């Protein structure tokens, strides 16, 4: 008899250990998640620890109301902890983008877990009170409790977050709780009423958590909210890219593959600088080519010129142009430019399109993503610019968005050099776009660029004085070394870009 009760004691103490570990893990998960999603980690951790400890106190208080079949209650609570704690991270990730008030849900989770864990220790002490001398009991229970806490606080940052991630960590410990519950059920089957139904519930929860664990990867990518500070109002994956729209009180932002494309607050600065210098350098431009720019914002600027007869827009992604032709919030941004009768949209690869093209244009706006990989890097090569040259009338002007001359001066001037190497006169300029930082553009033409006396279109940003400033490059935006020409067979630009922007991404 003595032996048996000893083993029962040990089992229950191990249960304390697991509970303590799991409890602290859930608290840490909640704290980390809150600081990820809401920012301000000191506040988040502080509040969560406070709420958690307080709720444990609440749980302890309520423990006195449990009078009968304590072991059975203990197991039920254990299962409940496994359910609530286990799913906590998954649920919080999923509800974050859709719930308007995230914080109450977060604290409700923390409170519930804390209360349940707070119930368990007193219950356990009462279960064991007849079996062990009181001073031994207190000593053992709290020893295991605090050792469990230490273990949790060590493995959480060192092992769990880096290898499992938050969702799987909480699920893993949920599963652990359920296992403890099931084991206790089996061990003390005779002492528990309705053991069978409890067991059934435990198995259902266990399966659900295992399934979620297996699917956690897709769950994680679905709830990608971590990357964004604002609320996501729309997101979709196309075969070509991930399109995400976020909004806060001030602005609407578009991200393609997590890179900011525009912010409604200052996109006019970018698009005016991109479009109008080139357009105003052409005499009565009629036929305009836009490569990239599926958001229709450059087209909006182009359509301000009464001389324009056609705009040919070539963008890779049909989902993108469709979105910006139909979605209400977005067509307000681009002033319905993509559905304008002058605009013809082709969804295809710009390089291939240009190779097969025979038409010649008066002006070309080239607005591709930054050359961050070899696939996009091709669109900045001599081969591409030679084709572009063929698609332009002799008096035409083209402009290339050319990344930031401040963050990536070599990349920026490499575009300029490459344009020159195929026989263009390159005119580089830059401006400040608050959401991007200092941004650069290069005009390519056959004749030298001269600033017009007036920009005939009413503009918010651009003027003769501003244009003069834009053409002026301070020393810290110059390359200071001879640069390679970007060719298909060296992709020099991608290497410059990686080298220069890499520094920013590491932070």
């Amino acid at each position: 008899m003595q032996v048996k009760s000893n083993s029962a004691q040990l089992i229950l103490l191990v249960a304390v250990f697991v509970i303590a570990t799991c409890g602290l893990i859930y608290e840490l998960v909640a704290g980390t998640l809150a600081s990820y999603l809401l920012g301000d980690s000191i506040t988040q951790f502080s509040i969560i620890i406070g709420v958690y400890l307080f709720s444990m106190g609440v749980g302890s208080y309520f423990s006195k109301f449990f009078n009968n079949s304590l072991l059975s209650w203990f197991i039920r609570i254990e299962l409940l902890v496994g359910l609530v704690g286990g799913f906590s991270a998954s649920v919080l990730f999923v509800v974050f983008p859709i719930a308007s008030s995230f914080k109450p849900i977060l604290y409700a989770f923390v409170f519930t877990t804390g209360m349940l864990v707070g119930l368990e220790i007193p219950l356990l002490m009462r279960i064991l009170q007849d079996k062990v001398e009181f001073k031994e009991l207190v000593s053992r229970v709290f020893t295991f409790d605090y050792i469990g806490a230490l273990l949790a606080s060590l493995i959480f940052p060192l092992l769990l977050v880096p290898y499992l991630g938050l969702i799987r960590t909480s699920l893993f410990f949920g599963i652990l709780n359920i296992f403890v519950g099931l084991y206790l059920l089996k061990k003390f089957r005779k002492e528990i009423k309705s053991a069978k139904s409890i067991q059934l519930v435990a198995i259902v929860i266990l399966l659900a958590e295992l399934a979620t664990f297996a699917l956690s990867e897709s769950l994680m990518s679905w709830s990608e909210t971590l990357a964004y500070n604002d609320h996501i109002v729309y997101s979709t994956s196309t075969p070509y890219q991930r399109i995400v729209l976020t909004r806060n009180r001030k602005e609407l932002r578009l991200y393609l593959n997590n890179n900011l494309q525009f912010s409604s607050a200052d996109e006019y600065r970018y698009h005016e600088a991109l479009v109008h210098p080139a357009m105003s350098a052409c005499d009565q431009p009629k036929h305009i080519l836009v490569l990239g720019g599926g958001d229709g914002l450059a087209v909006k600027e182009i359509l301000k010129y009464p001389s324009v007869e056609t705009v040919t827009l070539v963008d890779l992604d049909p989902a993108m142009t469709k979105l910006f032709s139909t979605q209400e919030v977005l067509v307000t941004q681009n002033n319905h430019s993509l559905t304008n009768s002058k605009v013809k949209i082709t969804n295809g690869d710009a390089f291939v399109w240009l190779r097969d093209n025979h038409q010649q244009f008066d002006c070309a706006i080239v607005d591709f993503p930054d050359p961050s990989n070899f696939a996009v890097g091709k669109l900045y090569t001599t081969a591409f610019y030679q084709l572009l040259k063929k698609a332009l009338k002799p008096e035409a002007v083209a402009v290339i968005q050319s990344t930031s001359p401040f963050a990536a001066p070599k990349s920026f001037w490499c575009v300029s050099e490459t344009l020159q190497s195929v026989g263009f006169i390159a005119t580089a300029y830059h401006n400040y776009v608050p959401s991007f930082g200092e941004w650069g553009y290069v005009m390519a033409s056959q004749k030298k660029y001269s600033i017009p006396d007036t920009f005939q279109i009413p503009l918010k940003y651009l003027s003769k004085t501003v244009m003069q400033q834009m053409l002026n490059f301070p020393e810290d935006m110059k390359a200071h070394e001879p640069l390679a020409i970007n060719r298909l067979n060296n992709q020099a630009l991608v290497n410059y870009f990686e080298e220069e922007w890499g520094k920013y991404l590491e932070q």
Partner: protein
Amino acid sequence: MKRRKFIQLSATFAALAPLAYSCKQQHKPIAGSIIGASSNIGHLIRNGKFDAPIVTAVVDVAIVGGGISGLSAARWLLKNGISDFTVLDLEKKMGGNAAYGQNDVSAYPWGAHYVPIPNEGLNEYNDFLVECGVVTGFDDKGLPILNEFYLCQDPQERLFINGQWQDGLIPHFGVPEKDKKEIQQFLHIMQEYRLAKGKDGKDAFAIPIDSSSNDVDFTNLDTMSMKDWLFSKQLKSAYLHWYVNYCTRDDFGTPYNIVSAWAGIHYFAGRKGKAANADYHDVLTWPNGNGWLSEQLQNPLQQHLQNNALVIKVFEKENKVVIHYFDVNTKQVKAIQANHCIMATPQFVNNRLLVDNTERKEIVHKELSYAPWMVANIIVGKLTDKTGAPLSWDNVLYESKSLGYVTATHQLLQQNKTINNLTYYLPLNELQPTDARRDAQKMSHADWVNLILEDLKKVHPNIEKVVSNIDVMIWGHAMAQPVSGIIHGGVRKKLQASIGNIHFAHTDLAGISIFEEAFYQGINAAKKVIATKN
């Protein structure tokens, strides 16, 4: 030739088959088939008895074999005003080792898939490259400007080594300093050889090989193996040895322990081309590999090309050359009577076709050996990849038995290539060629698929899930092996000599199987024909 016995020791290839069998259950069946280079038709010569020809056509020149040598010979005849000729080939398409395939995704090579930047002074070859738009002009210094769409795009090469993809094929990632030093030392020697000239003033290592210097200081390198040469220079780094062995297997289908040191060095030192927009280490390539160049050669020749024609006998008769061939379409034996015949076929085939010439046949039998290859075209969706350098044109796995794969879709301009053709190369050089050929014939499609997937799984863990088709081509006699003694031992000279009006043109007479050699083999044979007319 005795050196070949060394490789008998390494019977790893024999171990591949059971390995493949044991893995059989792990893979779902993958679509595709084994495509032979018409070895079944070819073997008819070895086995079959043929009827007497039913008709006889008369032409001025008959060219047997429509590989690059044969096509180049034909082109040269046409350029020099001779238009009464026919090119016969047993395959459905001309091109020989420059064969290629085409599927919904893209064209892809079945064999040779690139040419280096053309060396200076190869006027005929440069003319051809101008003709087909590979060279678009010349800069102020007279350097050719190469068509950018045909220069291999960046990223060109990567090597999976020490758990990561590194940029370029020369091992450096995780390689100890000591080894790096030896590799640099080796490359330095190669650079010296690249610039070296013999006492006769000729380049020590030139393309075509026959224009190289005869200086014994260099030709002596042909008497030892590449491996022995490395040791003789105190170059012992395992990384360097792997790299050199990879290179000789890649270009010659022959491991470095039997390849001639002269040929091995030629791989590095023979290429010294310069262009306005490229350097000697760059290459020209197309989705269909050298099939593109073969098509350019064929374009003006269309009416002279006769496919599905298996030549079975070539002999001299009353100052003419008579060619018997089996028309695969009509299943009839036909004859051609020609003033000249250019045999642009490998010498082991000529041994079957020529009637007499016992002495010649003995030399061929004794001296020449041909490396068997397996080439596979793999259609894949989006692959998971190990970290490091991104998918490149040439993707090589350190210490793999294969040579890795070439991305056939690399040269396409499209941004998003969700489906790719990967062309996987495996020289079967772990056994003697005859044994390797025999074993290769025993392998089923599933066996090859298992072997390929086991290899590529190391770098693309999800390949089994995203592969949709694997076609396999077995080249029984892909290329002559430049083992010691072949290049400068006098064998080639004997075999290059014409027999009456029968002339020979093939890379096995050059010693190494590269496009430029085939191109000049053809021109030289054509020149012999033209010389008799003037």
